C-alpha cells in the first residue's frame, strides 16, 4: 500500500508559500539553537573537573579493613562466590569452622559485570563498592585483583558521600 509522495505542485503562489514555510522553519530552528548558546554549559571537562559520583555507584569492589580487628570483615561464607552470575570470585580457605583462614580471595575485575549481587548477599558487609572508575590498563592481567589489591582498594575512612571535585586534575 506504499505510495510515493505527491509531486510538488507548481505555480507561483505555492512556490512563495513553500519558500516562506522553509524560511520560517529555518528561522525558528536557528533561534532555538542560538538561545541555547547563551545558556549555562553542561559540559564537564574531564580530567580537569570530575563529577560527583553517587555513593551507591557500582565502581570497584573492595574489602575494607575494619579498624577494630585490623582485618576485613569476611566470614568466609562463600555466598558471594555462589551468587556471582559471572563466576569471577574465587575464594579458598584452610582450616575448619571458626578457625578458617582466607588463603585466596581473587576477583577478576575484567569479568565482573558490576551487578552488585555479591554486595547484596554479604551478611557482614565485608565486600563493598568503591566509587572509583578509573582502571584502564594496557595489560589485562592487571585486572585480576587478589586479596591485597582488594584491601588496598578500600578507603581508610567510611566511604564519603560522593567523590570531591578535583580542582586541578591532570592536563590532557
Amino acid at each position, binding site marked *: *500500500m*506504499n*505510495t*510515493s*509522495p*505527491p509531486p510538488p505542485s507548481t505555480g507561483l503562489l505555492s512556490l512563495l508559500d*513553500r519558500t516562506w*514555510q*522553509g524560511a*520560517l*522553519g529555518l528561522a*525558528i*530552528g536557528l*533561534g*532555538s*539553537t542560538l538561545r*541555547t548558546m547563551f545558556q549555562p554549559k*553542561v559540559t564537564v571537562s574531564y580530567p580537569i573537573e570530575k563529577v560527583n*559520583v*553517587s555513593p*551507591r*555507584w*557500582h565502581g570497584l569492589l573492595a574489602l575494607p579493613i575494619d579498624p577494630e580487628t585490623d582485618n576485613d570483615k569476611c566470614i568466609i561464607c562463600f*555466598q558471594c562466590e555462589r*551468587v*556471582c*552470575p559471572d563466576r569471577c570470585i574465587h575464594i579458598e580457605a584452610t582450616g575448619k569452622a571458626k578457625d578458617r583462614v582466607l588463603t585466596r580471595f581473587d576477583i577478576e575485575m575484567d569479568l565482573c*559485570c*558490576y*551487578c*552488585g*549481587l555479591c554486595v*547484596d*548477599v554479604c551478611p557482614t558487609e565485608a565486600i563493598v*563498592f568503591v566509587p572509583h572508575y578509573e582502571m584502564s590498563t594496557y595489560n589485562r592481567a592487571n585486572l585480576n585483583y587478589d586479596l591485597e589489591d582488594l584491601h588496598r582498594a578500600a578507603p581508610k575512612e567510611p566511604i564519603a558521600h560522593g567523590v570531591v571535585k578535583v580542582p586541578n586534575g591532570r592536563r590532557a
Partner: protein
Amino acid sequence: MIRTEELLLNMGPQHPSTHGVLRLVVTLDGENIVDVQPDIGYLHSSVEKMMEHRTYLQNIALVDRGMDYLTAMANEEVWVLATERLARIDVPARARYIRTLMLELQRISSHLIWLGTFGIDLGAFTAFLWAMRERERIMDLFESATGGRLHHVYFRIGGVYEDLPEGWPERCAEFCDHMTAKLPEYDELLTGNPIFVARTQGVGVLSRDVAIALGASGPVARASGLAYDVRKAHPYEVYDQLEFDIPMRTEGDCFARYLVRLEEIRQSVRIIRQCLERLPQGEVRGKVSMTLRPPKGEVYARTESPRGDLGIYLVSDGSDTPYRVKIRAPAFSNLYALTEMMRGWKVADVIAILGSIDIVLSDVDR
C-alpha cells in the same frame, strides 16, 4: 533500449546509522527499492540458554544487558513479574510504585535516545546533543537510586533492592518540570522543520492490517491506528490506578511514529508526577530466599517496553534454575515489518524508515 539491472547494495554490519550490527541487503532498481532483506544474528548472545543455568536472582543481572539494553529495567520488570506470578509472591505497595516510576523514567530515556539517533541519522545533529543532555539528567537520577547508569540490577523478586535515597522524589519532580519545559524546543527544532517533515511525512507507510498481520506492537503499531497498549489491556504494577492516555495516530508513516513517541514522553511525565504524589510509605522488599524454587508450572508475563510488547514465557521444573525461558522480543517483530514498509521508496528513505521503527539489535538477536 537501455539495459537495466538490479543492484544489490549491502548496508553492512558496520554502518553509522543501522543502530547496531544489522546488515541490510537492499535490492535496488536505480534509486527505487525493490526488496530489503535484513540479515540479523550478529549480536546473538544465547541469552535464553544462559538463563537456564543461572538462578532466578542471577538472571536479573543477565536479563538487563542481554536483552534490550536501552530499557534495562523494563527487562528486569518482565522477568521479575513472571517469577512472582509463578511463585505467587506479593510485592509491597511502595515497591510497586517505585517500579512504575523507574519504568516510566526508562521509557523517557529510551525515547530520548531514539529521538537523538533519529535526528542525527537525518542530519539534525543538534537533536542528538540535546537529547543526550536531557538523558544525562535521567542517568544521574538512576545512578543515585540504583547505582548504575545503564545497567541497574535494581529490581528483586518481591520488590526492589533498596529504598530511594533522601531527596530523590524532589529531584525527580524537578526533572519532570525541566522535561516539560524542554519538549517545545524539540518541537521547534524538528517537528516544524520543513526538511524533517519532507523526509518523514508520508514515507514508509504501514497500514493497520499489515501491522496486525506482521505482529508489530508498541509505537509502530499505535502510529498505524492499532489502539493496543499492554499497560491498558493487561495492567501490571499500579498502571490500573493511574490516569494516562495512549497516543495514537492513523497515518502510519515515519512522522506519525515520531509524533506518537514524543507524545508518549509527555504521558510518561504525567505518570511520574502521579506516582510521586501517591508514593506510599512502607518496606520495599519482601522476604524471598536467594535460591528461590518456584513450583512446577509455566507462566507468560507481558509488559509494555518502549519498543512494544515484551513478553517472557517461563517454564519451571521446581529447581532453582528455570527450565526454559522464551523471550518475545518486540523489536524482532517490528523489524519483520521492515520489508513491507520499504518497498517502493527511494534508497535515501532507508535510513529514515529504519530509524523510525526504533530497533535495538540486542532485542532482535537476544
